[in-house]
């Protein structure tokens, strides 16, 4: 595997690990209950650690494509969640009226950084890095 491409894949994997640990920090350490949309994003983020990690270890170019599929799904949900959070999508379209609200803002770091925005940022970074890795020759 070319060095450049491997480095990009490493960065994508570390982003997914940081995203996973970050989301676990919010739920397990800060005790913020994940809402339904958070769980859908977790379903995409957590496996990325394994898919990209094993791909990286075995230098398997195929993992880039599998990772892209997961990251794209996560990014879509994160984008929707972000729009809901910031009020672009009206309340009556909220998918989780029962239990925890997905639109309630629990946390705002340095003024603007909400959890859905961090998620959106993490998934976009991973997609960017994986696309770049493909450009550098990781195509099966």
């Amino acid at each position, binding site marked *: 595997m070319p060095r450049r491409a491997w480095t990009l894949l*490493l960065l994508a994997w*570390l982003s997914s690990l940081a995203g996973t*640990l970050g989301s676990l*920090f919010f739920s397990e350490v800060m005790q913020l209950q994940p809402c339904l949309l958070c769980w859908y994003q977790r379903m995409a983020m957590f496996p990325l650690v394994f898919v990209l990690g094993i791909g990286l*270890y075995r230098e398997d170019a195929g993992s880039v494509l599998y990772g892209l599929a997961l990251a794209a799904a996560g990014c879509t949900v994160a984008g929707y969640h972000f729009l809901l959070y910031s009020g672009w999508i009206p309340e009556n379209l909220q998918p989780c009226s029962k239990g925890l609200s997905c639109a309630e803002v629990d946390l705002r770091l340095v003024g603007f950084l909400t959890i859905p925005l961090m998620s959106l940022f993490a998934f976009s970074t991973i997609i960017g890095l994986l696309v770049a890795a493909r450009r550098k020759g990781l195509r099966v």
Partner: protein
Amino acid sequence: MKRQGIMVGSAVALVLAFVVAAFGYAWLAERRLVELAAKPDSVFSRPHSPTYGPTDARVRIVEFLDPACETCRAFYPLVKDIVDSHRGRVQLVVRYTPFHAGADTAVAVMEAARLQGLFWPVTQRLLRDQSTWGADHNPRPDLIWNLVDGTGLNLRKAREDAASAVVRARVEQDLADARALGVTRTPGFFVNGRQLKRFGANELQELVREEVARAYGGGGAP
């Protein structure tokens, strides 16, 4: 080989950062609670909260109590004994957490009794006869008024108070504080803001001993 080394190294660094952040956060959160517990009006204690023991005690046990909860009943003599045995150094603060069915009536009666200076005799009576009015399978809150008759309570006044919006708001406040502190089971204990994490009588005694030693300097009597 070198690549796998980089991979493992960076992952270990991230996980270590997570562990350090988790411990740091827990430490900060505990310090914040300890500071809150020292204040007279906070999630730990409200101006309406009934107390037992001296007000100038430097160690304060906060108990989230459900009068229909059997473990609360079992702990009652024990907690009283802890306060008594530390002679003037420990105070108990009671918070209303009516989680069981029927307990909402009981805590309203307790608060009404507090307004007449009869919180403890009425609470003792309710705990003593818990099986009569607060049995899990068959709660009978309608029997409560008969049970507390004879404690010296002015029943007419107490009924009025128990049904008042003020008393209801105080119980709501206590329940909101319990939620804020993550109390989901009763009895829930905090000693100077430190939560009793592993539940048990010995554990509670140990936690109080620790806090007394911290507040009054190394162990031993004065």
